[in-house]
């Protein structure tokens, strides 16, 4: 086993807000708090990064892409810090780590034809030696993604649907063949009827070009459908990781349990039986420096949860959670 494909090591990101013109108080918001995970890349996997809005999912994505710098900690791609990659071998990094953003409208320039994003990629990374060849590989890749080139080539962004715009991004990935794709809520803005086509395409692509993917979403139904592994973030901290099916079937952390419980099941015969209790929490509580991030809402809260931060530890084989409810299990497995 060599270097992992991606290693996020103890990454923290602080944002400063206020302080403008000295009129307001300067505040530091910790968006991501000592998050670590690895994507081994041994076999292609889709790892879902799940959390509510404001949990730091997109901040992590932006740091991996080098669009933001971590306040502390480091992100290693194939064993080398991303900052180094971006300084020395930016082109190689950009080729191997690709992104699909949330907004299928924002990434296209409305004055250019949609196929420009494909031909630009072909040119930039020298994927074809002639115009004819470029044309051929673009057409071939579109067909492979189940798109009809005759319907899409030469069209302008407003002429095609959001689903097709996002699937063209997959065509681009098929052309570039990156090792890692960061997908930030790629289907949240497209229609339900077209979502599953995108998700099926993405899974097909994973095996076809042997890429790994960090799939960011707030929708557990989608995470469950598309991903192999799942990582659950709560207010900037990682609270649970594990194989997707196993986490959803038997969530360990009370936060994950709450999330899984709230998923609407598309079957009127299986409606919710319990009601959610809404407890308001102040911003300060949410960003508690001390203790577990979920302690103010947790139904199983214990005194120690308010004073100490639970570490992310292995509770069962392949399953990690950051919760003191499992302290005994952790104690028992500790090497003496």
């Amino acid at each position, binding site marked *: 086993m060599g270097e992992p494909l991606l290693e996020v090591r103890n990454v923290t990101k602080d944002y400063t807000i206020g302080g403008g013109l000295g009129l307001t108080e300067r505040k530091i918001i910790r968006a991501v708090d000592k998050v670590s995970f690895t994507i081994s890349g041994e076999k292609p996997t889709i790892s879902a990064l799940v959390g*509510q*809005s404001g949990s730091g999912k997109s901040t992590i994505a932006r740091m991996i892409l080098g669009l933001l710098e971590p306040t502390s900690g480091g992100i290693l791609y194939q064993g080398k810090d991303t900052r180094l990659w971006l300084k020395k071998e930016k082109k190689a990094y950009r080729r191997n780590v690709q992104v699909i953003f949330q907004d299928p409208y924002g990434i296209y320039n409305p004055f250019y034809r949609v196929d420009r994003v494909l031909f630009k990629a072909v040119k930039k990374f020298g994927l074809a030696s002639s115009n004819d060849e470029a044309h051929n590989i673009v057409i071939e890749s579109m067909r492979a993604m*189940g798109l009809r080139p005759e319907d899409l080539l030469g069209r302008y962004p407003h002429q*095609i*649907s959001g*689903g*097709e715009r996002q699937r063209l991004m997959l065509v681009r990935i098929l052309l570039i063949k990156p090792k890692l794709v960061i997908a930030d809520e790629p289907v949240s803005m497209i*229609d*339900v*009827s*077209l*979502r*599953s*086509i*995108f*998700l*099926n395409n993405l899974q097909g692509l994973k095996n076809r070009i042997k890429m790994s993917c960090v799939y960011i979403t*707030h*929708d*557990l*139904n*989608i995470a*469950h*459908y598309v991903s192999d592994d799942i990582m659950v973030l709560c207010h900037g901290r990682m609270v649970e990781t594990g194989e997707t099916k196993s986490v*959803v079937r038997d969530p360990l952390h009370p936060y994950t349990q*709450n*999330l899984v*419980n*709230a*998923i*609407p*099941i*598309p*079957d*009127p*015969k299986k*409606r*919710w039986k319990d*009601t*959610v*209790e*809404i407890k*308001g929490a102040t911003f300060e509580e949410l960003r508690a420096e001390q203790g577990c991030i979920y302690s103010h809402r947790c139904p199983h809260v214990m005194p120690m949860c308010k004073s100490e931060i639970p570490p992310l530890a292995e509770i069962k084989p392949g399953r990690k959670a950051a919760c003191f409810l499992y302290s005994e299990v952790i104690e028992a497995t500790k090497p003496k």
Partner: protein
Amino acid sequence: MEPILRVEDLRVYYKSIFGDVRSVDGVSFSVNPNEVFGIAGESGCGKSTLVEGILRVIVPPAYIRSGRIVFKNTDLISLGEEELRKMRWKELSYIPQGSMNSLNPVLRIEEQMMDAMISHTEISKQEAKEAALSGLKEVGLPVEVARMYPHELSGGMKQRVIIATSVLLKPSLIVADEPVTALDVVVQKGILQSIASLRDRHGITVIFVAHDLAAHAEIVDSLVIMYAGRIAEIGSIFDVFGDPLHPYSKLLVAAVPSMEKDVVEGIPGLAPSPLDWPPGCRFHPRCPYATPICSKEEPAFKAVRQGRYAACHLLE
């Protein structure tokens, strides 16, 4: 049972330089009192235009081309602006799409809630304030919220404020347009349950518009599936999910990812443009079961069996 709202052959068009955009093009249904009535469909199918038409909150270039909207024996289309204004909030309430952004940023929550009451009823300031506070409690918000400004609240809390405001004057019908879109799962669950409790606790009839079928499955009693400005199918939620009649409903129900399905297929093709609906059945270019007649004749929308309506040639 006498329906509380009856919509007959409603057409809501938008004027444009290319001709009329036929967003809602001949829609008929009735809503029974005390039910949560769901409207589902892809974006651009006319869901929002339909409810805006029903409440007559449409603005030009949209206009009501034809049809009847009968609410408790009153034809809403024939009413004048002033008469309509009197009905709003007291009889009909509207929770528009993205309504959490419709709060006034420079007024405290209680002021906005009181405003709605004072302008529509003879009520003292003190009474209005008390009603606002109890309204907030009912949707699970702490009373401190009353003194806060909108920017101090989260999206879910703002959405609750809007729901609380919409029930203040105890209307008989509330129309909620995509009230849970863009909210987190846990918050979404809370809001959906608040909406369901409007009916359970106050006997309010709710029209619930959402593109997310999973949300419909949780709270809705009857469901309309719209496609391309028309109704594809109407039935009880159990019927539409358990045994969809229209091919579009079938595909749509099957396209929802869920914990219980390993593979879901989407619906290939594009939703058509309201400027130029396909001839015949509007779904035929995407329909896997289409026959020659589907591209020529528009299928009639009619009762297929007791309580179930659909528009499809295959059901003839």
